[in-house]
């Protein structure tokens, strides 16, 4: 099975002490590697104001991770653990590899088109437009 890339964001209660935060992250990372997946990136965004109240709280501690896996069960397991973990208020897993693939494709496409464009369209579009306006005006006034 091909490898898939997931974004995993979870929000911890803002009053969670720092060691506890690290503990949650460590368990998640451990669970990922145990299931044969890779943690590509772990990023603590820190305390942030949330757009709406969750569990009557306005702030949360955001943690962002990127996980590469060839097995969908990893996500299931991680979500289960996040659900169980007490300080976790909210989590979101998003599969991103397909969108990134599309991005690559479009990028390549644009580069190819940009390489082709200067010869074809620019002389054709720019030159006739200006002269046509000129002659008409000249004949009409004379």
């Amino acid at each position, binding site marked *: 099975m091909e490898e898939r890339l997931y*974004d995993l*964001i979870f*929000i911890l209660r803002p009053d969670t002490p720092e060691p506890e935060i690290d503990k949650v992250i460590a368990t998640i990372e451990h669970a990922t590697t145990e299931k044969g997946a890779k943690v590509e990136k772990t990023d603590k965004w820190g305390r942030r104001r*949330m*757009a*709406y*109240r*969750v569990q009557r709280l306005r702030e*949360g501690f955001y943690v*962002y991770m990127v996980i590469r896996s060839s097995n969908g069960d990893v996500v299931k397991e991680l979500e289960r653990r996040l659900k169980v973990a007490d300080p976790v208020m*909210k989590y*979101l897993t*998003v599969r991103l590899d397909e*969108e*990134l693939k*599309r*991005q690559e494709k*479009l*990028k390549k496409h*644009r580069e190819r088109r940009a390489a082709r464009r200067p010869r074809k369209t620019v002389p054709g579009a720019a030159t006739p437009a200006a002269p046509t306006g000129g002659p008409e*005006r000249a004949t*009409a*006034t004379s």
Partner: protein
Amino acid sequence: MAEEHAPQQPAPVAASSVPAAPSGPPAGAPSGPSGPSGPPRFGGPGGPRPQGGRPGGPAKRGKRNFVRKKKVCRFCVDKADFIDYKRAEILAPFIQERGKILPRRMTGTCARHQRWLTVAIKRAQNIALLPFAAEL
């Protein structure tokens, strides 16, 4: 009708031939009243229009101000191939204060980018980066 029509024709022609180059706005002024006075529909397709086009030039420019400025898709300008749901600050201009996603006709976003945008906004909402609805 025909008699009315006939005198109209020479007037704009004369106006255009004499002051065409030196003063545009004065030429446009006389041609203006002549048009609306009679039935403009008859005068339009006839001779005077193309010739009166030059005096009409400034008037046209005036009209153009009423034409709505064309909105351009912001993501196309940036050449975005991917709209990141994690960056709430770039998504925020596309939602209403109440939290609704703005329609394409308001923002000028192209169809493709609007499609991506809605997905990104909905993801951001789920992780409390953007509101579902205004609070209180």
